[in-house]
């Protein structure tokens, strides 16, 4: 069914609900009345079989006097489908779609924290992003909230740890074991509380967002279109390029910019190099968690070639900084292509040896059958990337919503049906080899021409950009504002959708398998939190800060 058929079908089916239909940047934007929201969401999720991506609030009081909620679905192989509803600012109550689309749980809670929009019928309307000591009634992403305002903080009186007892829902447990916020298995601060009985995990509680940076707020209040890619790339230290690419794609779609072919190919090459490095990093970390240090060291040794290649092509080992709306800032020259091909051959042969050494019966026995995630749950929670493909869902934005040079390149997507840690590992191993194939093809077919297109800023345009990151698809939704600024910028990293699946995956696993199961989604907490923590060396304390404050701090310290 094509896009037009979908629109006409929706129009006839929900004629009384639909307020407006628009097609910004080839996607569908349908505005419905709040009372019909759940019904339409149910239809597109169940009948049209769309995959849930994310939701976002928006403070449109300055324009229409209303708060809006955007639910983004992927109508695979067609376009993005954005479901919008607006409610008056005096009574910001929207029906919750979590009952129909369980994956919307977190995104709705985030909108609740950030905009003060209430979701009626939400199963657990508790705080997600805001810290426990944040004052009631303050919502940071509202337009009347100053980006540099810091409310006074106080220590929350909350007891997390307890030994023995009955957990919510009547689950009996013997020990509540804290995993985090600082734990050798997690390389970033995040808090899991495992309720264990002997060696078996019974249930898990999660609290994240310890270090929220407020990047969306900075993007909306301080920066212009062209500056945002650089802060977007700093959302994550491992898969930063996917964020800047995805942001640029959203802007390009919103403003209708025609990106030159050569820029598309360069982005594709760098994206795949990033995927290879990220997967090799993950394989190393997985080996480390299984106590197999030799595998860790060798995986990272191969990764080192990839980092050198990235430096050759972009000038940086990580955080390449070459993306800008309309194209890229740095070209690839002829002799670099030859060198890059040689490195790719080297990586391929070395990785194949590593693969044979790693996938031995001892390792497989630790991974097989552990951390099971059924296909139905995977779709309901809307998990992404290797976590999704390990549960037998053959989705990949590179194929389903083709972008950049991917439609012209030949590659396979790796899918395994078992839904366990082994399946997720095998997906990543296969993806490394596919990525090597993609990079080689793109290098061979690199078209000639300019690398950047000019454009004119236009206000109030919506764009959805999505890039397949190593951990799953990254979705950026952009609404442009006046004077080259953003009105709303929503970032959704894949880990955001994947963490809720851990509750299912961790149930019943042995405690020894808990770290590798958590790692099997390749969690990237900095993406999820979009945050940073700074250590104040003078006072020895840790402070939560924004990037802009950090810059001021650095300037102050370094003079």
């Amino acid at each position, binding site marked *: 069914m094509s896009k037009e058929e979908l629109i006409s079908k929706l129009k006839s089916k929900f004629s009384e609900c639909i307020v407006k239909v628009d097609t910004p940047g080839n996607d569908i934007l349908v505005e419905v009345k709040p009372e019909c929201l759940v019904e339409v969401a149910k239809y597109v999720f169940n009948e049209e079989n769309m995959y849930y991506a994310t939701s976002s609030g928006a403070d449109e009081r300055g324009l229409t006097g209303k708060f809006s909620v955007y639910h983004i679905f992927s109508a695979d192989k067609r376009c993005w489908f954005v479901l919008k509803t607006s409610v008056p600012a005096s009574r910001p109550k929207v029906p919750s779609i979590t009952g129909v689309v369980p994956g919307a749980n977190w995104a709705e809670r985030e909108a609740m924290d950030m905009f003060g929009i209430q979701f009626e019928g939400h199963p657990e309307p508790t705080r997600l992003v805001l810290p426990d000591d944040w004052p009631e009634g303050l919502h940071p992403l509202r337009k009347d909230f100053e980006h540099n305002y810091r409310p006074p903080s106080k220590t929350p009186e909350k007891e997390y740890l307890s030994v023995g007892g009955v957990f919510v829902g009547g689950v009996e447990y013997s020990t509540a074991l804290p995993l985090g916020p600082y734990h050798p298995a997690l390389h970033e601060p995040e808090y899991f509380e495992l309720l264990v009985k002997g*060696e078996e995990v019974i249930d898990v509680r999660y609290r994240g967002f310890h270090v929220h940076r407020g990047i969306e707020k900075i993007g909306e209040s301080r920066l212009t279109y062209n500056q945002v890619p650089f802060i977007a790339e700093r959302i994550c230290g491992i898969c930063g390029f996917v964020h800047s690419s995805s942001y640029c794609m959203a802007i390009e779609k919103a403003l209708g910019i025609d990106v030159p072919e050569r820029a598309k190919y360069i982005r594709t090459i760098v994206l795949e190099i990033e995927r290879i490095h990220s997967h090799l990093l993950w394989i190393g970390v997985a080996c480390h968690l299984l106590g197999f240090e*030799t595998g860790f060291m060798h995986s990272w040794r191969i990764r080192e070639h990839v980092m050198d290649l990235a430096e050759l092509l972009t000038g940086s080992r990580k955080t390449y900084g070459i993306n800008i709306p309309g194209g890229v800032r740095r070209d690839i020259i002829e002799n670099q292509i030859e060198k890059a091909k040689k490195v790719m051959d080297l990586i391929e042969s070395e990785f194949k040896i590593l693969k044979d050494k790693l996938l031995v019966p001892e390792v497989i026995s630790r991974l097989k059958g552990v951390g099971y995630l059924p296909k139905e749950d995977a779709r309901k929670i809307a998990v992404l990337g290797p976590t999704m493909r390990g549960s037998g869902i053959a989705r990949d934005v590179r194929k389903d919503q083709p972008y950049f040079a991917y439609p012209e390149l030949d590659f396979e997507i790796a899918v395994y049906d078992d839904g366990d840690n082994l399946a997720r590992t095998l997906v990543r191993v296969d993806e490394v080899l596919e990525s090597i194939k993609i990079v080689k093809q793109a290098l061979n077919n690199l078209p000639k021409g300019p690398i950047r297109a000019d454009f004119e800023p236009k206000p109030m345009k919506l764009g959805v950009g999505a890039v397949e990151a190593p951990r799953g698809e990254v979705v950026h939704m952009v609404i442009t504002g006046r004077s080259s600024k953003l009105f709303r910028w929503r970032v959704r990293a894949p880990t955001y959708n994947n963490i809720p699946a851990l509750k299912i995956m961790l149930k019943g696993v042995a405690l*020894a398998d808990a770290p590798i199961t958590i790692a099997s989604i390749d969690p990237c907490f900095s993406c999820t939190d979009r945050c940073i923590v700074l250590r104040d060396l003078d006072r020895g304390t840790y402070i939560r800060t924004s990037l802009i404050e950090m810059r001021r701090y650095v300037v102050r310290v370094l003079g």
Partner: protein
Amino acid sequence: MTTVYVTLTIIGSILGLILAPLVDGIERKLRAKVQNRIGPPITQTWLDIVKLLRKESLIPRTAQDLFFIAPPLTLAMSAATLPLLCYGAPNVLGFYGDIIVILYLIAGSSILLYLGATASGNPYAAIGFSRRFSLLIACELLIALAVVAVALKTGSLSLTEIVMKSELAPSTILAGLSLLITSYVESSRLPFELAVAKPEIMGGILIEYSGRLLAFAELSHLLHRFVLVLLGVDITLAPALKYLIELGVTGVIASFILVITSTVIVLVIFGVIEALCGRTRLDYALQFTSKLIVLPIISIVLASIGV
């Protein structure tokens, strides 16, 4: 002759104390080579211990007295086994049943350390304890069975006498080998490093130990490894040692060198094996030990029919 025996035993005991951390340093260096790293100098383990000895020990609020009594006592018990061992020369300190005392001291020292760790009140230490204890019971059974096989064959429970009375027999060699394999499992090397398992339980039994207490715990753990392997080497090589000892002074010195170098070599081989393994799970580890039990049982059967 007795002077030579006494001197060698004293030298052996002191050497054991020095070598145990040094061999760990060699293992670390070799592991680094396998892992494509440069690695620390071989004295690193000693440097670590010396540094830890100078550092303050933090004692958690929830800890009971046993928490800080256990590590020094554990070290004392491990060190006490050193003069009782047979370093190639007959041990004049040896007495009837000294092998049982050695085994008691080895097992007792580790159990004491685990109890001390649980006294910290940390849930990770409790999990480390429960893992380690399950494995320990399985291993102690294996060690005891191997010793029974040797005792049956030689008719003695004194280590020196076992060496002096042994002959080239399949049962003794099998018992010695099973002792060596068990010592690998017992001394919590990968894949059986379950009680510490940093990525899983953040160091488990050692989680709350720091400074001096950690140094004591580490040193006693290394001595523990050394002693167990030396015991296995003694029994496996017993006929060769007996032959050398009967040759006179040069023979005794040769047998001393043989015991020490074989122990070091076995430890280093263990260290390299460790580099090639990942961590297993407790259930797999217990399955492995239950299969391993076949070795000492065959050895007992062989010994009882006099082979």
